[in-house]
């Protein structure tokens, strides 16, 4: 997991996909699910509306037809049950991929994720393990009903024994989902639904996983490090583009695995730039951004030439959609934070 490899895997995005068609993130997820199920009979899909309907976002479309109802399972409507079943299946050596239809409905399943999935290997000293993936669309920006737009990833990042992975492009969705499925431990795979279909990218169905626990450096720059994940990568890259026109060169890091954090890549970047803005959609209070800021305060203090800035959601309840745009961090907010940080000196 060298930083060089990290940079390579990020920079190469979009360059080596041959004649593969350009597809959206949700199609890339579907492609990865097909690939994983084809390669490994132990991979099982379960969730609400995942089989016949192909998922409410169509992430699982075609899988029932290809792999049958024994492996692509419409469950009764109970999120707690879905997670509990996945724990039992995983303990038997299956590799269940459970879909929670929206992250806002994941809370009934938290007991099984936190008290069982995250702990089974540890509390049996390796006798049993829990190689499951829980997929859930998350985040705002699509004018959805109440409870469909929150970003509560920090709740999971806090739990020892869990991995929390968030893709930000079709290619990374394909490679990271394959990695999550192959990982021998539980992975919470959160899909930023705002960018499910906003960007098409060539994705080669080459069965190649991308590394977990590793940041992706999407753009190199010497002036300031912009650290983000999920859908906010879109605004972060836009801000970097606009700032480049003013001669400000941003390094853009997609954290991708928010827990456990790839501290080395973040520290190396800030060591180089001396400035940092952390961007996320989730509320600022107790966020993964707080953890990154804490990391920089304790390990990069002498590298920093300005305070670490954070651009995030307000510490409010996620508003219903008429005020949604006012809640969401915007490209301009990022640009302002960058300029304030650089002007500190």
């Amino acid at each position: 997991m060298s930083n060089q490899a990290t940079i390579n895997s990020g920079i190469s995005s979009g360059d080596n996909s041959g004649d593969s068609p350009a597809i959206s993130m949700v199609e890339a997820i579907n492609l990865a699910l097909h690939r994983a199920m084809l390669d490994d009979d132990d991979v099982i899909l379960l969730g609400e509306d995942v089989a016949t309907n192909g998922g409410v976002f169509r992430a699982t479309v075609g899988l029932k037809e290809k792999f049958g109802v024994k492996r692509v399972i419409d469950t009764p409507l109970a999120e707690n049950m879905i997670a509990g079943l996945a724990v039992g299946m995983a303990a038997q050596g299956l590799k269940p991929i459970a879909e929670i239809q929206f992250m806002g409905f994941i809370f009934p399943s938290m007991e099984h994720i936190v008290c069982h999935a995250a702990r089974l290997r540890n509390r049996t000293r390796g006798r049993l393990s829990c190689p499951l993936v829980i997929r859930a669309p998350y985040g705002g920006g699509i004018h959805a009903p109440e409870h469909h737009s929150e970003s509560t990833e920090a709740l999971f990042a806090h739990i020892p024994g869990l991995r929390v992975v968030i893709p930000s492009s079709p290619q990374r969705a394909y490679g990271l989902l394959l990695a999550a499925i192959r990982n021998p431990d539980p992975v919470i795979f959160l899909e930023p639904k705002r960018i499910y279909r906003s960007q098409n990218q060539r994705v080669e169905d080459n069965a190649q996983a991308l590394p977990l626990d590793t940041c992706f450096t999407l753009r190199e720059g010497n002036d300031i490090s912009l650290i983000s994940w999920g859908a906010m990568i879109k605004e972060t890259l836009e801000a970097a583009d606009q700032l480049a026109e003013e001669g400000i060169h941003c390094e853009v890091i997609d954290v991708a695995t928010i827990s456990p954090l790839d501290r080395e890549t973040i520290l190396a970047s800030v060591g180089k730039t001396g400035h940092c803005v952390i961007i996320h959609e989730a509320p600022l209070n107790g966020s993964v951004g707080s953890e990154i800021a804490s990391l920089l305060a304790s390990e990069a203090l002498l590298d920093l030439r300005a305070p670490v800035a954070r651009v995030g959601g307000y510490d409010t309840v996620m508003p219903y959609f008429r005020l949604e745009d006012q809640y969401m961090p915007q490209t301009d907010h990022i640009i302002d934070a960058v300029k304030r940080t650089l002007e500190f000196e």
Partner: protein
Amino acid sequence: MNIIYEGQIPFYQFLNEHSQVIQPLPEWALTKETLINYYQQMVIARQFDTKAIALQRTGQLGTYASSAGCEAIDVVTASLMSEADVLVPYYRNHAMQMIRGMELSDILLYWGGDERGNSSPAQREDFPNCVPIATQCLHACGVASAIKIRAQQRATVCMLGDGATSKGDFLEALNVAGVWQLPVVFIINNNQWAISVPRSLQSIALTLAQKALGAGIRGEQVDGNDVIALHQSVASALQRAREGKGPTLIEAVSYRLSDHTTADDATRYRHPDALKTAWEKEPIKRLRNYLHAQGWWQEHNETEWQHQTATLIQASVEQYLDTPPQPVSAMFDYLFADLPEHLVKQRDIAVSRDSGESSCNSNSSGNDREAAS
């Protein structure tokens, strides 16, 4: 008005509380071998329980959940399970774990605060004790789903208490076990108490077994102090599960003869007369009186077995007490298959602290010192 559904809950009892046979016995119970085995195992379970409580009282064991009163349920069920079946216990099933192959010293190790008590290879694919109430019901359904997906002829056995029947996990598990026809047997040890809350405050339903009917699965009630009734009910349920004929809910009616755990004092909420009555019905005495009456178990058998059991348990206690503690690194080593980098650093700090070295060594960064302090 037409009645579109009527349910029935059968009740099984062969040996009543006076050790009298109240209906013709099944063939296996006409000879002594199985019954004597059940009796002997129950004696071990009871003596183990007494010893574990004594260890806790003398500061040599952590909080411990007594199994006094559910010996018949556990011994019969575990004895009928095959090696390939999977046990998904709650936290009162020490006798089942013992019969499934766990060393008593490992059971003590668990209650002595050491995760290695969940790691015995003898447990094979069995789940470890489940402390969060009723969550194990869904794990059992997940295990049973895997068995069904792989078209194996194995049964999953899920143990729970009467309090657990109030939880959504239990009802969700019954529901999915029914709709998917899973090879699972749920056994409620209805010992009448969920810590201080009596059975009457959990549900107004006449039986807990009838919860099965709402899920469209078979439910039955059995005298949980009668090994013969238990054997009949559990053996049939296991056979149905292994043959792909669907799940069963068995409510085994017993009585918790102990406090909830060693941290509890049941005299605060339970009338001594109720406990006295329960001791009149308890499973070990009931079977012993029957075996005596049949001439299958004499006083000298009893003396010898009690003595042998005490020797066995003493040896397990010594083995438990002689088990050295885990290295401090163990709290990190099984968190993930591969330990992430920052946890390697925290492990190094924990190890150096434990060995008495300064925590401010050159390997520990500021953030990790803070995280681990």
